[in-house]
């Protein structure tokens, strides 16, 4: 099965691999679900529907993976519709992200129920819109479509945050969020324009934002540098990457618990965007600026770890954990080494799952205690041991403990990093990761393990739905941790193809 080549990229159309346009379905299904739920208003069926559509999307994603041939370097299941510049295609790497988006959304629908939100129907509709946005970003190979889907998803998150915000701090956090994300989105859009303009210059006035076209008309010199920085910073705000992470701690502390941060950082679309668009479209600039990007990321690992130790609020602390570990992902990605890229993608999925799990548990704790201030929490282990152990297990997954999916991925990044940057800086980065383990354990010790304070209220025992949410996330994590082979197989060829653009 050979593909059609377009300026360095090859693709295989969906008709040759499947009977249905699976990627279109993946995008439409959640939108359809959202519309239906919206029509059902506040009826109880809306809740069931929301769960069903999220589960359906997850199953559909699994079907799509089954139709993919991971041994081919080409992008697959491609669909094109020229009038709208609609062009989608996936490879093993994007499928990892899509699967994690579908799984996390499904877990969020379960979580939303167990929390008994005031308006579950509305929540589920918006959640599915956000999922459509995420999946759209992950399947498209058109930068403009990527930006549009990104806007859709941001709208959904802003909507949720607005419904939540009541106090001054919360409104302020929302404003900060909108400012940061709006600015990041504009940067990215400007980067798209530079690329599209470059294409128009080179082809005599024909504008295009399609990856396959753009890769044949890469801007040179200053224009490429400009495009690189616009796209990179745009995505860096979204990811978020140190030092552009200012929106996350406030939003995590004051925003809607669990769901909002999970939507923003559960699926690492920023990392995906860099991999899919930035690396191939600005290769020379990437190689020139690689040391600076990696240098900042290494500094970020430590800086945010140091900040995390200062935090007194569990939600805020988790935000810094996210920033710390995204730095690690960027190091893996910008090693421009196949092992590093593969590791970064697997680790991105793992971190997303783990940190979302932690956020859920923080949400469960908040529901019981009404606070996430560390000095007000104590002795939770005695009352909710399952959630406590799950919290710790997710925390250890972030650190790359053996037996969690993080281990093999971190191992790959380590390998690539030694190869590219030498052993010393690699050890330094790994120590930064231990620092992350440090603050997570410290938080665990204070909130869960310490003696229950006198006069503290009785905390409810773990509910069945909490067992389900925590259990699914935990089981998925352990299963991937001990059976990494299929995941490595899924991402291997695509990582090689991505790394092949750069001279080692």
């Amino acid at each position, binding site marked *: 099965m050979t593909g059609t080549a377009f300026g360095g990229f090859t693709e295989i159309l969906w008709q040759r691999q499947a009977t249905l346009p699976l990627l279109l379905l993946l995008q439409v299904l959640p939108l359809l679900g959202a519309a239906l739920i919206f029509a059902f208003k506040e009826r109880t069926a809306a809740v069931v529907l929301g769960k069903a559509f999220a589960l359906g999307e997850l199953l559909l994603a699994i079907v799509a993976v089954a139709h993919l041939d991971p041994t081919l370097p080409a992008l697959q299941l491609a669909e094109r519709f020229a009038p709208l510049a609609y062009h989608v295609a996936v490879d093993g790497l994007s499928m990892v992200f899509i699967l994690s988006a579908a799984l996390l959304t499904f877990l969020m629908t379960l979580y939303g129920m167990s929390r008994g939100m005031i308006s579950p129907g509305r929540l589920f509709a918006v959640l599915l819109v956000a999922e459509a946005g995420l999946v759209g970003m992950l399947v498209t190979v058109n930068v403009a479509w990527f930006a549009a889907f990104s806007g859709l998803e941001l709208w959904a998150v802003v909507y949720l945050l607005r419904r939540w915000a009541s106090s001054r701090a919360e409104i302020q956090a929302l404003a900060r969020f909108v400012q940061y994300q709006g600015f990041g989105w504009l940067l990215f859009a400007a980067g798209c324009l530079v690329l599209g303009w470059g294409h128009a210059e080179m082809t005599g006035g024909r504008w295009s934002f399609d990856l396959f076209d753009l890769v044949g008309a890469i801007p040179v010199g200053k224009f490429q540098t400009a495009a690189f920085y616009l796209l990179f910073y745009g995505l860096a705000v979204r990811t978020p990457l140190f030092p552009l992470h200012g929106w996350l701690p406030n939003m995590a502390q004051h925003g809607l618990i669990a769901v909002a941060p999970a939507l923003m950082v559960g699926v690492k679309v920023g990392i995906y965007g860099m991999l899919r668009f930035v690396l191939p479209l600005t290769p020379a600039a990437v190689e020139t600026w690689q040391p600076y990007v990696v240098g900042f990321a290494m500094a970020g690992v430590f800086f945010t770890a140091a900040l995390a130790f200062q935090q007194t609020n569990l939600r805020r602390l988790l935000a810094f954990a996210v920033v710390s570990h995204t730095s690690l992902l960027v190091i893996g990605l910008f090693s421009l080494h196949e092992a590093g890229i593969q590791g970064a993608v697997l680790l991105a999925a793992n971190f997303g799952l783990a940190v979302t799990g932690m956020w859920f548990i923080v949400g469960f704790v908040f529901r019981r205690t009404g606070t996430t201030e560390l000095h007000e929490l104590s002795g939770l*282990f005695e009352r909710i*041991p399952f959630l406590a152990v799950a919290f*710790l297990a997710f925390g*250890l997954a972030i*650190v790359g*403990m*053996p*037996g969690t999916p993080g*281990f*093999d991925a971190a*191992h790959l990044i*380590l*390998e690539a990093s*030694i*190869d590219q940057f030498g*052993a010393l800086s*690699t*050890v330094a980065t*790994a*120590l930064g990761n*231990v620092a992350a*383990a*440090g603050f997570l*354990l*410290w938080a665990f*010790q204070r909130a869960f*393990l*310490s003696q229950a304070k006198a006069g503290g209220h009785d905390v409810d025992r773990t509910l069945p739905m909490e067992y389900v949410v925590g259990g699914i996330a935990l089981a998925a994590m352990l299963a991937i941790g001990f059976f*990494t*082979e299929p995941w*490595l*197989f899924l991402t*291997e060829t695509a990582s090689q193809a991505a790394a092949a653009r750069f001279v080692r």
Partner: protein
Amino acid sequence: MTLPLLSLLIFQPLLAAALLWLLPARRARQMAASSMLVSLVLGVAALVAYDPAGVRFQLIESVAWIASLNVHYRVGVDGLSILFLPATALLFLGSLVACWTAVSDAPRFHYSLLLLLQAATFGIFCALDTVMFFVFWEATLLPLYFLLGRWGVTAGAAAVATRYFLIMLAGGIPLLLAFVMLAASQVVPTFDLTVLLAVPLSRGTQTAVFLLCLVAFGVKVPLVPLHTWLPQFALAAPGSLTALLVGLKLGAFGLIRFAVPLAPEAALDLHWLLAGLGTVAILYGAVGMLAQTNMRVSLAYASICHVGLAVLGLASYTAQGAQGAVSLLLSFSVATGGAFLLLEFLRQRTGSTDINALGGAAKTMPLLATGFLICGLAGVGMPGTSSFPGEFMLIIAALQSHTGAGMAALFGLSIAAAGFLALYRKAFFGPVDREEVAQASDLRPREWAVLVALIVMIICIGIYPGPWIEIVRPAAEAWAAGLNR
């Protein structure tokens, strides 16, 4: 191929740890005890199945685990590791039975953690694949973290547990790095220990690997100056847990199994470093021991001192050194493990193991006092106890290869022995001042039974060490031959 003994050893406790949750909480310890009994039987069966005169690695099982990274689930034993299997099983069982009634809250969680720790320990002794070894190595941390953090005996136990976890996690980085470097140095990247042992490496890689391993295992041994966690741990943890941690010298085993044979030339070059670290540990441990008033901390220093001797003897790179080191480590499982268990009995009775709060304990608890004396004397290498053959071989090896260090070691060991006796005198003899000591009752039959089993082993192995040493000898000779090829 008959039964997959080693896999059974590793997975049986895991299974038991899971099954335990299906039983009512009060049955948890019976379940754990029966699982540990099965482990002991399996450990002895592995020992019987092992042929000391046969090939180097036996009872090998190998299954592809992560094929694209060439990582395998591969287990096997040689003469250096086989005896640790029954010793581990025995120590866990002993610790469980000795503290049969000590755990009242969350027993299922406690016992499943113990079983998890046991499985990981078996894994460490059996692993023949570096990635797998690393997985088991790190897998010991979580159970220890919870066992110490939740069932610690001091108020600050959770903080000590966190600190221990972080130090060990940081220690794991150089180890992982060394393993990645080893794999990358091969034509086809591999983590198979037997292959890695057979293919010589460049001098530069060897030096890096050796130093990385030295740091990583040095934290666990512990070697001075990486030892600071151990006295804290001993103070915060119940004696039954410290017995497991100190009784099983995983760090020293790592040095024997990985650090030295994987980088033989670098090890030979840096013999002074290894010997120096060993000597410093002996002297520091001995002096540190004298400065303590709490016997748990004091014994922790004594253990630093003795494992230093094993490291020093190892640095001779002779078969005798390796054989002595393994014998001594095994003897410690019994002697130090027993001593810590006895200190736990003492703490449960009097609320303290500080010599200032004791005095005259032998009057009310003669059996306990006698047992502690025997374990302690075995700890200092008294002739006629199980430690003597190993200690003797180590000192001979050290005197031959590093005469000055060997003399210093002898000096340090004498100080340690004197320190132990002084401590013993203050705690167990003299008038009884305190109410708690006067009220204390002597060992119960259950405690006594565990103790008798340990003492019988100490004395039997001490008087008739031949068979045990013979099991280790061929492997130790192969080990030394691999270094001096």
